[in-house]
């Protein structure tokens, strides 16, 4: 499973990197989205053993978790990370749109004025 | 609105999977709150539907229930039939179909009625409703295999629209 996830993670990162190196604003955003998927999965694999069974929900009367329950902490961390990256992504979208509007092009290479000497 | 509130309370209990009184109370109050929030949308819809409702329909509650039940059974049957039809077409060794879009004139007037009809058409054999003309008098339907366009039109009007119009004019 970890191998499988590791490959998935690698693929996500590779895809993200490739997209981020394009010139299109939209591809850049999509790359960032993939990047955050990759990170989330990566954290997920870092949990206390990635197991198929056992939602991290304990018995509501005894408070005892089934043996083999997955690591709830990484889930909480990823949840936080997901929500944060949601906020960021929304912002980047808005910013990218505004930049496209201002530059009248969605080509990132056209957005190089602030560095001109 | 009250009916809707009850429906929402019921939905709440279904969601909670618990039909205790306290759940009903909570569900009812939440439903009330939700209706309050969504009242603009709901009121518009109710007013719009009421505009086309004929007077004689009111007060014939048992008949309506009967019609509703019949409608549901009919709908289910149509859906299953539709699926089998489509499956048959798909599994043919050679695809030999003759798709097209036909215009169906509408008698049903209310938005809810039109929606119900359109959805029903979509769910049933080889037809998908694509759009309704802005003045609501024509429904455009895509058919996967048209042998006789007029027959199809009649079929839709007779078996579907008639039933729908009884519930929502």
């Amino acid at each position, binding site marked *: 499973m970890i191998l499988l996830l590791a490959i998935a993670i690698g693929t996500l990162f590779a895809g993200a990197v490739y997209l981020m190196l394009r010139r299109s604003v939209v591809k850049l955003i999509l790359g960032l989205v993939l990047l955050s998927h990759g990170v989330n999965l990566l954290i997920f694999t870092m949990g206390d053993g990635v197991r198929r069974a056992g939602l991290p929900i304990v018995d509501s009367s005894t408070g005892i978790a089934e043996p083999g329950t997955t690591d709830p902490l990484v889930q909480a961390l990823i949840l936080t990370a997901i929500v944060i990256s949601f906020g*960021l992504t929304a912002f*980047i979208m808005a910013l990218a749109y*505004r930049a496209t509007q201002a530059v009248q092009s969605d080509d990132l290479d056209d957005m190089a004025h*602030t560095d001109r000497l | 609105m009250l009916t809707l509130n009850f429906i929402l309370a019921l939905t709440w209990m279904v969601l909670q999977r618990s039909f205790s009184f306290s759940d009903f109370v909570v569900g009812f109050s939440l439903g009330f709150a939700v209706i309050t929030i969504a009242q603009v949308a709901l009121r518009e819809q109710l007013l719009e539907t009421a505009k086309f409702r004929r007077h004689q329909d009111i007060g014939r509650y048992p008949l309506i229930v009967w019609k509703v039940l019949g409608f549901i059974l009919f709908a289910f049957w149509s859906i299953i039939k539709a699926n089998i039809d489509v499956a048959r077409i798909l599994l043919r060794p050679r695809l030999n179909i003759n798709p097209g879009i036909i215009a169906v004139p509408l008698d049903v007037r209310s938005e809810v009625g039109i929606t119900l009809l359109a959805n029903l058409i979509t769910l049933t054999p080889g037809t998908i409703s694509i759009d309704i003309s802005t003045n609501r008098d024509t429904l455009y339907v895509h058919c996967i295999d048209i042998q006789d366009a007029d027959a199809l039109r009649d079929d839709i009007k007779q078996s579907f629209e008639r039933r729908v119009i009884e519930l929502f004019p």
Partner: protein
Amino acid sequence: MANHLFLPLISPILAAALAVIFTHQQWRWLARGVVLMSITFNLGYSLWLIWLIGSEGRQVTQASNWIAPFGITFVADGASAIMLCVSSLLMLVTVIYSLSSLDPGYENFYYYPLLLLLLLGVSGAFLTGDIFNLYVWFEVLLLASFGLITLGGSRPQLEGGLKYVVLNLIGSTAFLIACGMLYGTVGTLNMAHVAERMQRVQNPSIVTAIACLFFFAYGSKAAVLPLFFWLPTSYHTPPAAVTAIFSGLLTKVGAYSLYRILGQVFQGELARLAPYVLLIAGLTMLVGVFGAMAQMNVRRILSFHIVSQIGYAIMGLGLASAAGLAAGLLFTAHVMIVKTALFFIGGAAEQIYGTGDLKKMGGLARREPALAIFWFLGILSLAGIPPMSGFFGKVALLQAGVNQGAYLISGVAAFTGILTFFSMLKIWNEVFWKKAYGDMSKLPRVTPGLLLPGAALVIISLALGLGAGMLVDYTNVAGEQLFDWAGYVISVCGDEGCEAAFEAALR
């Protein structure tokens, strides 16, 4: 437990929420009052905290009252207190500067709440003792900075802002990856616990790669050599007040985190990586100052200097000693203040001329002598000329470097100092000394609101220089506290250490 440690977070968050709720024109005074009160409170609190830590040592508390290492620990030591204090000071001054320099439109669009939330993120980052929580505060401050840097929506802001945002996002991603891998490897997120477990890790190992990952993450926030490009591309685009507070806070949080995580938690790894860190520090200094020399715009010059000065901060880290960290802290605290002041004053000049282009400015020394005096004192401080605070920052670093035998980096640092002076003098020459081309009488005069914030900071820099004895003593203590991971562990988890607490809780 020092439950008061949460106050510097609660205050800005409540104030920001209230300021958003009270944005309506008729409540404007209330919103402003809340903002100012909150920042003033933070400033007062952090001064008190400095005193408290000076007399009682580290302060620790556990959020939600869950024992360390399971809950989120909040720790304040000398380093955090200093940074906390300087950032709230800068924030206060920035708010005052903004009130007089910015179009009222900014206030309609939640400029002040964003500033408060920036302060919130920064304060959280300085106080937290949990690595993932640090990530969260980083994101808070980053997103606030994103909002601030693009607020106004001019084309340069949008172009520069996009690069700023994306490159910072890559850094954040690395941070997150590092958090995840750290948890996967050592099974904990509490800094003290990590530091303790690091002692039992077989070195060198994957942990080294994780340390490097952290270096990459914080390095890109701090704008070290190959990762600084977001800074000069964007920092000159927003209003001067924003640039000023950014220059004061943002990269410094990165530097602080490098100190905290590499200097304290990953101390063993730092010892191994020190030569490379110093290499990066030296290159960062030089590339930054070279970049500044090439520019012909006030704020762009200053922006490149930020990079260069981060090199100094990293040098303090690379010395991998209490003295190095102490010197770095001193330098960082100084540069935060002075840099902000220079951006304020430069911004005032820019506002007078309507441009920051050196070629189009001139003759300001005669027209606005007060501005000139404070600018000159500011660049003296930045260049490390006594008795301004910059001198002590520089000497502390050089002293630490020389005493530890790091001659090369000390030489580079000294050389960078003179290049810094050189490029700052360019602004002085062009803006203040050079003859103005046109008729200056039409230009607006500097208002007290534009002048005083920068002047106050310059005076503080002078005062810090004159009172450097106390300051240096305090930063030395802070440096020792930072370098003393074992003491940190005991403060957080008790005398037995975190592992014992961990085992006891699971038994």
